[in-house]
């Protein structure tokens, strides 16, 4: 009888330990094993996740700017920048919704439970230096960060079809977006295919170039045209009027 009692006590102790272990160990959201099941990978094996986005294709630059502005939660910046460097990190952009400051910006349709479904993925961060500002509250000389889904960390590689290839030293005009409630938030590129243009190789400042010079889109399938004249109008607030 004493043995039976002893066995029951031992069993109970084991059960308690097991329960305590499973309930008190929170899942590490940045651990790729928890997200992608990478623990089964061989050391030299790379898990490649590919992501395809169904993105709006805007009929005009004006429509693109308008779409972002009516959302009521996004800051928009149109800037000429130089790409300084890049790095890759685990990132979950949906975390910005968890800021208390976000509440006034979110409509009644916003369901906080859905934000938890997003997870950490490899994101590439580019540091950029602002050279000229056509729209937005930043200033020339500011250093910002642009982030895009995609990149490789350890043995998890994420390929995104909407990834805009940026190279260190590039001189680009970008249409950037970020949540209004976080001034220093990393920027996203709006509708990746239509929001990155190469500044004319001749360089110089905007005013030194002819208004009808068209900027080359980074994405060759982009059918929108952005001219120096458009940028001047964006800068003086007359664009689209």
């Amino acid at each position, binding site marked *: 009888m004493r043995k039976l009692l002893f066995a029951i006590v031992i069993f109970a102790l084991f059960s308690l330990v097991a329960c305590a272990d499973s309930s008190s160990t929170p899942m590490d959201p940045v651990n790729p094993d928890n997200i*992608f*099941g990478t623990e089964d990978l061989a050391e030299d094996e790379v898990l490649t*996740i*590919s*992501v*395809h*986005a*169904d*993105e*709006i*294709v*805007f009929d005009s630059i004006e*429509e*693109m700017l*308008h*779409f*972002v502005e*009516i*959302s009521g*939660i*996004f800051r928009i910046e149109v800037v000429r920048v130089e790409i300084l460097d890049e790095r890759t990190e685990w990132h979950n*952009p*949906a975390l*910005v*919704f968890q800021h208390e400051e976000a509440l006034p910006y*979110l*409509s009644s*349709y*916003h*369901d906080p*439970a*859905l*934000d938890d*479904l*997003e997870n950490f993925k490899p994101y590439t961060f580019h540091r950029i230096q602002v050279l000229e500002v056509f729209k937005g509250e930043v200033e020339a000389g500011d250093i910002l960060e642009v*982030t*895009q*889904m995609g990149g490789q960390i350890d043995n998890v590689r994420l390929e995104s*079809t*909407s990834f805009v290839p940026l190279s260190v030293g590039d001189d680009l005009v970008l249409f950037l*977006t970020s*949540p209004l409630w976080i001034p220093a938030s990393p920027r*996203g*590129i*709006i*509708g*990746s*295919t239509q929001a990155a243009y190469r500044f004319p190789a001749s360089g110089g400042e905007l005013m030194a170039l002819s208004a009808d010079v068209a900027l080359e889109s980074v994405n060759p*399938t982009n*059918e929108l045209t952005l001219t120096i004249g458009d940028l001047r109008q964006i800068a003086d607030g007359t664009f689209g009027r």
Partner: protein
Amino acid sequence: MQNTTKTTTRKLLVMFLCLVLTISAIPPLHFPAQAISEYPHDDYVFSFYEDWDMFDANGLAVLEAQMIEPLNLSGYTTRGEAAALLVLAREPGLLTSPNTPNIVGRFSDVRPQDWFYPAVAWAASRGWVQGDDLGRFRPNDRITREEFVAIVVRAVDPRPSNWPLTAFRDANQITPWAIPYMRRAVENRWIIGTPEGLLNPRHFFLRVDALTFARRFPTPGVTVNFPTNIRTITWNASGGSSVTAWQRLAGSVIGNPMPNPTWSGRTFRGWNTTDGRTARGVAVTASTFISSGTGAVTYFARWHEPYPSDAPHNGRRHMRQWYRSSAVTLRRVYFEGAWRDSLDDAMRNWGNSATPITVSFTATSNNIAQIGNRYINDPAVLGHFERQAYSGTTLNRFIIRIYTMSILNHAEARPERQVRNVAASVWAHEIGHAVGLADNPSGATGNNSLMRSGRDRNAIRGPQPFDQQSVNWLYR
């Protein structure tokens, strides 16, 4: 009686020792070249693979196949092993030659029954190795770097060298008799030193170092001799012309041309260790061939099949993987109501299309359909498809997600757009990715593709004839 027992015990002990010696004398046949860099070694006198091309495949094969105790690469190289390695590299046929020189008595610690006897005998008769002042070879002692360098220089390039060693901070630690050998090895760039500028002449040589070093000196005229029928290679042409299985026989040389199959309309792209369906595998080269183990093995043909002329899209707009079955299952995560209605619409539109595709909910599906508020990084994104798991061209698991707030904004921008229609279009688009349709760039296919980002999402909520043609080709 007691004496008899003692005698029996002694006999058993001797038999056991003989067995151990016999086993230890069997050269292992498998040496995974890829594993070398995974083993620790104490410094980086010899960088790996730097001079891989210096050796022909045969030379590499010999060294890798015959290395003693290959799984213990982090261990030290003994003098006996070094002798064997050297002979194998220079004249591998010697070890199986019946005319081993008689060196009995030359070294007090080398006996004819020792596994290293033939190697030491040949190396000594060639003048590559020498004993110590006490008449010993010390075959089981660990060999130092300078000792190893000395025997290799004697064997391969004994020319005198005055190459300065001043570039190395520890040159003064080289034993005087070894200096000429070290000069030659450095001049020949068999040794390049550590990044810290050290030669570490008196450090013991790791097995992995010995192997790497051996790769650095030329092995002209090396041929490979293997025990008879140690490996049977079957070439699987997977539909191409049949290729006779090829057995590696004694005296055969790895350099034998690999048989190339033919297949009408396809181009042979080489042999591979897998058929590519469950794992990518690696291309079979001469060194893969030799180091891939023992026993029977099958290698598979890799074929390039030009995209069929009757295939839609000119081969440009299919996904690399498409779902393993035309019966697609989804598990809905945490949403009901209007957003579910839109997904129902999309699933119905696929099910009613002129394709074999059906889409249904099952609670156990690995494929997830979920909704999010916004893709905060880019408000123009209305939905995402994530390929989660695949093998070859088969998609095994995926996630589709739509962003409700962005869809609301998109719908509100034009009065004719209905939220449910836009959402259904995005769901149907993401399902399209799952069944193998890639995005169609704007303008490339007009407005009649579900996979075009610039489509009218209010009107196009299921696969169009253009899309159906593609899917039917994939699931033909």
